[in-house]
């Protein structure tokens, strides 16, 4: 298997030198990047535009981020994938300068994220509980556009976010999907180089989600850099060049979508059998077995050889079901992998 550990993923860039634009060290950095990371093709020589360096963030007793290293290079789409409460939003807020780390360094375009000048180069779509409802769509966009030096023309923003037909509606009269599109429009209206999309499609139906994906893809074609957070593996897969999986405040895996999928494509086999737990556990490829009511539940990375063996061992086996493991199990698997590797190192 390919090395997908966070440490590998991270130790690639010398963010500061690249950000300061010293071309010599930039080249050096990209060479090492290329050698250590076989999937870095699309990001070769691209400068780091956003980075977290051993960042720790606590909210009182809660450790939201524990020593996270993370880079976004110019022109790429990076997905931070993780369950709720994993620390995704905290990472985005740190990069936007909305909150400060307890330790470590946060950089945007090589500088401090609270630098107001940097904010003219970034756009953000955050999770919002309530947006002023009595303003019309075009009024919201007009106001946000005024903050930027070279905003996109209103018509272009409306078109890019698919809002042409509803630009005169008040925000309060919009559906959930339309509201997300308005927030998306506010993120892009200033024509920023770097976009932060925090769970852009949360709560959307399949159709709206795909429409928003198309809009995000269109932006990427125009050379924008995107950091998106999501808890849908499918979404990260559909949009990102690179995925970093985050869980309980730490990055547990990182790589291309294919690499992450390979790690998380576990199967779950369920069947009623006379075989003992121990016998099933001895079958090669079985990762985990437990009893679930009157059936056994088996976790494995590849279902076919295990099923073949099961059927050979127990001709009376019944109620056979094979399903893909959910994302939660995938996270579990990734976390466990991480722990195993850590203990090996010690």
């Amino acid at each position, binding site marked *: 298997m390919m090395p997908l550990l966070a440490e590998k993923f991270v130790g690639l860039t010398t963010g500061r030198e690249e950000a300061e634009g010293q071309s010599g060290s930039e080249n050096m950095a990209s060479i090492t990047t290329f050698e250590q990371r076989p999937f870095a093709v699309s990001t070769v020589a691209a400068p780091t535009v956003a980075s977290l360096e051993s960042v720790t963030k606590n*909210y009182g007793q809660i450790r*939201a981020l524990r020593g996270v290293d993370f880079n976004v290079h110019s022109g790429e789409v990076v997905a931070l994938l993780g369950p709720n409460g994993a620390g995704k*939003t*905290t990472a985005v*807020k740190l990069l*936007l*300068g*909305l*909150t*400060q*780390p307890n330790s470590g*360094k*946060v950089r945007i375009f090589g*500088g*401090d994220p*609270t*630098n*107001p*000048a940097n*904010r*003219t180069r*970034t*756009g*953000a779509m*955050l*999770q*919002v*509980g*309530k*947006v*002023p409802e*009595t*303003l019309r769509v075009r*009024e919201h966009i*007009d*106001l*946000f556009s*005024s*903050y*930027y*030096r070279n905003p996109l023309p209103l018509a272009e923003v409306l078109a890019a976010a698919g809002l042409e037909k509803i630009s005169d509606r*008040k925000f309060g009269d919009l559906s959930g999907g339309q509201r997300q599109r308005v*927030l998306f429009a*506010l993120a892009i209206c*200033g024509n920023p180089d770097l976009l*932060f999309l925090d769970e852009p499609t949360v709560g959307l139906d399949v159709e709206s989600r795909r429409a928003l994906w198309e809009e995000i893809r269109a932006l990427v074609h125009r050379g924008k850099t995107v950091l998106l957070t999501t808890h849908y593996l499918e979404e990260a897969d559909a949009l990102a060049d690179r995925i970093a999986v985050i869980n309980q405040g730490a990055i547990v895996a990182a790589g291309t979508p294919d690499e992450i999928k390979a790690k998380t494509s576990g199967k779950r086999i369920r069947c009623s059998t006379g075989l003992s737990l121990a016998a099933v556990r001895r079958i090669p490829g079985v990762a985990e077995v437990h009893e679930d009511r009157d059936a056994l539940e088996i976790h494995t990375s590849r279902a076919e050889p295990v099923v073949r063996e099961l059927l050979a061992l127990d001709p009376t086996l019944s109620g056979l079901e094979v399903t893909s493991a959910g994302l939660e199990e995938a996270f579990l698997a990734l976390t466990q992998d991480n722990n195993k590797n850590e203990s090996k190192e010690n």
Partner: protein
Amino acid sequence: MSSTAAVLSNPRIKRSPGHTATIYLKEAKYEFLKNLRLRMYTASVLSFPLMFYVLFGLVLNSKEAIGGTGVPTYLIATYGTFGVMGASLFGTAAGLASDRGLGWLQVKRASPMPPFAYFAAKVVVSMAFSAIVVLLLIVLGIAFGGVRFPLGEMSKLVSTLVFGSIPFSAMGLAVGYFAGPNSAPPTINLIYLPMSFCSGLWVPFMFLPKVVRQIALALPPYHLSQLALGIVGAGNHESIAGHWEVLTAFTLICLGVARIGFQRDQDKMYG
């Protein structure tokens, strides 16, 4: 550590004065439209003082006088203060508490909006609604209550009341920083209604019980209403400078409290 870095590499956004002015104007314009279209806001802020005035100043007591000043004139000063207070408290506190608690302020802060524009818009719009309430009261008084003002007196009354919106906007910012999105409106009512009563905005001051009259001396609406009453020749004829001093001190205290809330918010987690 990161704050030193921020100081060192913190060039302000270079904008032309025209661009900055445009941002402030748009921020204020949309704040105004937002509140104007908010029925909750216009109903409580505009209708209540006007309804009270029509009922108690025009329908019931219009021929009577308080200490030599006609009731319709006297009540423009007191309901004017009441209206200014409501417009300013609701205009700042309710919006701020909701924007802050439900994430909208984060979106604004993540944008290159000059932070001061957000607060300036709230204060200016509160003043605008204050002016609307006071002007409507005056129009009603002139049209139906036989109120007659020299023009100079009228403009002095309007500008005093509109300027008097500032202490209550400051108070609104303080409340907005410490109340939640749902608790802000009831909190405002809890402050606004008893304060109005005790300051003699509903029942003329001299008819209030002595204890209440003593409490009133510590309340900002009392001082603003006395300034307004002084202009129309009524009130307790105390030192004008004294009233302004109390209002200024009150404003500074509220801004101090709001600033504590602002600092506290810088590092708080939402959602």
